[in-house]
């Protein structure tokens, strides 16, 4: 498979807490195709941001392999990692805390260029920053403004420009629009799509909002408590959700039509604690269809081409 840019194998990240091991990410397998987008969906606390940060090794994984263009980046030392990070970038959720309040827009965008010594002369750096700003749709008059003078959408554009500065091949978008107004969300999503086409970028798009990911992703993986419960091409997942959790998530998307009554599947109860989780199906306590078999956590099995589900109900039908 030569067109795979990123492959995650059995990735695990446990955090030590006072009450035991917190299984934030528990044995995940994912692949991202070059130039495609993988949507990673799940509720807050399910470990999706941890996955994103572990891919960039901002968090060291407990176990597992992360193959970026065939190279296992979990084994790289600092200098090699710095080289790889030129190709991998991160767009943050909160455009307020992801920009240093004491730096001007140009200083923020030029930071990766200077840190990696890509351009030397300040003339070149200035030109490059101006070019990046126009790429992401920032007016050049904002060159020397401070982030706090700008609105959320513009701030997020700065974050995107910074991520693009090193011409990466792969970007982890960690809920890049969830802190923004709906109208601005659309602008930023369109921008990300345009950039993907222009620079042949591959994305992992982390979000809790399925309606966002629908238009954006080629494949979608649904995460629940550190595990992937369903993984399928976007259209297939929306047309034919199999896991009870995915079905519940999809039923929560509002339909923009008057008079349509939609049946909501409500998930009862609270999310199981990720600290020392039992070996049963992680979703068992909240699942409407739970039965005896669910005491063993189901494996992710392929039910149709490209459609994987981890549920005892689905495999045997």
């Amino acid at each position, binding site marked *: 498979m030569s067109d795979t840019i990123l492959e995650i194998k059995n990735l695990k990240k446990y955090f030590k807490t006072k009450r035991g091991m917190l299984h934030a990410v528990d044995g995940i397998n994912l692949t991202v195709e070059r130039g495609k987008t993988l949507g990673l969906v799940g509720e807050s606390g399910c470990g999706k941001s941890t996955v994103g*940060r572990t891919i*960039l090794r*901002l968090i060291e994984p407990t176990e597992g392999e992360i193959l970026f263009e065939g190279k296992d980046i979990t084994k790289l030392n600092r200098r090699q990692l*710095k080289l790889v*990070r*030129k190709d*991998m*970038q*991160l767009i*943050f*959720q*909160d455009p307020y*805390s*992801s*920009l*240093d*309040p*004491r730096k*001007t827009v140009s200083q923020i965008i030029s*930071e*990766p260029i200077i*840190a*990696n010594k890509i351009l030397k002369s300040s*003339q070149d750096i*200035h*030109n490059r920053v*101006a070019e990046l700003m*126009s790429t992401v*749709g*920032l*007016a*050049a*008059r*904002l*060159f*020397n403004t*401070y982030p*706090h003078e700008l609105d959320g959408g513009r701030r997020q554009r700065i*974050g995107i420009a*910074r991520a693009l*500065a*090193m011409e990466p091949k792969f970007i982890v978008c960690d809920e890049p629009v969830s802190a923004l107004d709906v109208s601005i969300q659309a602008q930023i999503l369109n921008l990300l799509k345009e950039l993907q086409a222009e620079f042949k970028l591959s994305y992992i798009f982390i979000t809790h909002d399925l309606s966002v990911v629908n238009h954006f992703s080629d494949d979608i993986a649904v995460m629940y408590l550190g595990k992937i419960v369903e993984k399928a091409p976007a259209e297939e997942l929306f047309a034919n959700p199999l896991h009870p959790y995915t079905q519940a998530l999809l039923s929560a998307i509002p339909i923009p039509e008057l008079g349509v009554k939609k049946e909501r599947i409500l998930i009862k109860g609270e999310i199981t604690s990720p600290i020392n989780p039992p070996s049963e199906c992680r979703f068992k306590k909240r699942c409407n269809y739970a039965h005896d078999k669910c005491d063993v956590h189901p494996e992710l099995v392929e039910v149709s081409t490209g459609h994987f589900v981890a549920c005892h109900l689905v495999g045997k039908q």
Partner: protein
Amino acid sequence: MVKEKYTVGELKAFKKRSIASEVWRNYKKSPSAMAGLIVVCLLILVTIAAQVIYDYDTDIVQQDIMNRFKEPSLEHPFGTDHYGRDVMVRVLYGAKYSLSVGIVSVAISCFLGSSLGLIAGYYGGLVENIILRTCEIFMGIPSILLGIAIMSAFGQSLLVLMFAIGLVYVPMFARTARAAVLPVRDQEYIEAAKVSGVSDLRIIFTHVLPNAMSPIIVQVTMGVANGILTASSLSFLGLGVPVPAPEWGAMLSSGREYIRDYSYLTFFPGLAIMITVLAFNLMGDGLRDALDPKLKQ
């Protein structure tokens, strides 16, 4: 989408004032901060002028028993002390000791303390524990006692005094810096810098330090004030700058014996200490406000 092409010349036109001039512009707006700055500048000028005008041997320490305890007058605006020395001349000349002790000792403690605090706050874990616990041990010793111990171990001189006071305030700077770093450390822009391939040292100096600076700057100006007070206290106890140097604390100490009859002997050196300390505090407050870009209009 804005798809405009700008030349470098045009971009330069958007260039705003430099950071220093920006800070100065904000600083100017506060009258109390300006008052502090003016007093500090005057003090420095006076110190330099006093070194030029007065001769240490004849004007400062030479005794004139005929003129003991002269009340303040035109000839001796602050009066004369028990050796007949002019108090005003001694106070003006003595500014040199207080200022140099205050500034040099704070430079020492700020450099050492902030570095330790930055490292502790940024790396956390074991490093943080070792640094903080050591600081706490030192903070458990009363600062005057620690100063006395260092002074008596290394002998009495201006240099040792600076060093002693500098060392005394290291833990305070370390704790202030570390506390200021904590909220900055978890910000996403630190992660962004890491992903961008910026080295730890560079992150500490270009992101962490500027954002954690305000409390440290306040601590510096308070530290200068504290340093001056501690130096005066040590001199008052006879452990600071050796007599007959006209250090303000030492002057207070020797004037104390005559406080009932000749209170001006303690009043003027005390006033000098107070004004200096106040000026540095005002300056610190103004600087902290001026350094915050969010306060800019």
